[in-house]
């Protein structure tokens, strides 16, 4: 009732002064600046000798320890051009100020049967990798969705999420399957990838079938944005299969249930456990499970 009256009172808005393309460029630039800023700070810290960190190594393992950011060789993996975020086609507002309608997503939506099959594969891989851990809670999308159950309807990607619980408490898990190979395969390519501001480490390896595997760690002690939880920690494994297909899995030390409880609220909250509920090796085992690919 009131919405129409407000809209009538507002009338026809003037053409927007919001330049979406400029915003995206600023967003990309901000990511690069933060990366370079962090790199500069790290370099200064190294020079001052205040913390022990590894240096970016190309060809050998780096010293262990927090802050290590090491690139390891990919073994026999076939070299390919360095990955970088692709530039999407520009979309600008028309002369009347209205944005054009985006094209519908391409591809065939995933069916319930396909989602169920993927869910079964995921759960089997999870049980094999972490036999002492229970699937609990609900999807990150809310209580109407099952935990660790793939959603239907995705055309280019599919995801499943939920909480995993062991003696240390619940933590969050997320897996995303994508078509194609639009993803980094080397640690030298992840500077602007993902939540890079909180990344503390990256290690490359090669899977048994030639998959490229990146294992990354993240820390957000102040809860600034990784999950908005104080003491946030996260592991991520990114697998790119030869010939196409990307699998990304995350485990974090905050349960989705707690994130959902605090979504939108301004109150601070703490992580639900000290470390993510799965190790990087367990995440790798899940991500490399045969059959976990977009149908």
């Amino acid at each position: 009732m009131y919405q129409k009256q407000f809209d009538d009172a507002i009338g026809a808005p003037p053409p927007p002064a919001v330049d979406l393309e400029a915003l995206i460029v600023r967003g990309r630039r901000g990511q690069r600046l933060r990366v370079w800023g962090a790199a500069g700070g790290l370099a200064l810290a190294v020079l001052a000798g205040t913390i022990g960190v590894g240096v970016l190594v190309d060809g050998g393992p780096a010293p262990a320890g927090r802050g290590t950011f090491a690139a390891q060789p990919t073994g026999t993996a076939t070299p390919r051009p360095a990955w970088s975020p692709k530039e999407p086609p520009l979309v600008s507002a028309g002369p009347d100020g209205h944005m054009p309608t985006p094209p519908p997503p391409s591809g065939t939506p995933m069916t319930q049967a396909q989602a169920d099959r993927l869910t079964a594969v995921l759960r089997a891989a999870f049980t094999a990798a972490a036999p002492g851990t229970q699937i609990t809670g609900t999807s990150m999308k809310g209580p109407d969705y099952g935990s660790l159950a793939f959603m239907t309807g995705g055309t280019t990607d599919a995801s499943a999420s939920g909480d995993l619980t062991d003696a240390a408490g619940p933590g969050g898990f997320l897996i995303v399957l994508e078509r194609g190979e639009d993803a980094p395969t080397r640690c030298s390519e992840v500077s602007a990838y993902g939540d890079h501001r909180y990344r503390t480490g990256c290690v490359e390896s090669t899977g048994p079938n030639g998959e490229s595997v990146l294992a990354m760690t993240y820390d957000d002690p102040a809860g600034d944005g990784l999950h908005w939880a104080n003491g946030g920690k996260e592991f991520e494994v990114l697998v790119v299969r030869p010939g196409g297909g990307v699998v990304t899995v995350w485990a974090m030390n905050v349960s989705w249930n707690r994130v959902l409880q605090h979504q939108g609220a301004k109150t601070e909250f703490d992580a639900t456990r000290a470390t993510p509920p799965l190790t990087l090796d367990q995440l790798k085992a899940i991500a490399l499970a045969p059959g976990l690919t977009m149908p």
Partner: protein
Amino acid sequence: MRRSEEAAYREYVVARMDQLRRVAYLLCRDWNTADDLVSTTLLKLYRHWRRAERMEGLDGYVRRILLNAWIDEQRRPWRREQVAEELPEVPVTDADLAGDTDLLALLGELPPRRRAVLVLRFYCGMSVSQTAELLGCSEGTVKSQSSRGLDALRPLVSRLETT
């Protein structure tokens, strides 16, 4: 951000741009400031898009960013509003209704928090609990702010309903 993520971000922004601008305008009552707020909001959303897009209630999350941007904007010294704890609420008279006073002007006279409650509840269609969560206050506060805010608007709204 990957290409597919950026495409999804762009799609979301294009679909929500008009609504976001309108909400921002209702909050700040100035289109230039509204566009600034929306720009700030969308830039922050870009930084967090990868995770935000997969969560339930993305619209609520974006409104939260917008609301915070507006609150931050008001805190800037050169744009600080002079707000009393309880602004005197002058009853709307028939003369007002016949003159220049309109719904937006009345809305603009409300204290910022009460204005935000009305916009979220009655323009964005959010529930009491959703509004309370977004504003970080109790449901009782939202209810009382809604009631008092509507009291200030009701004469005009009633008049608009009959025309």
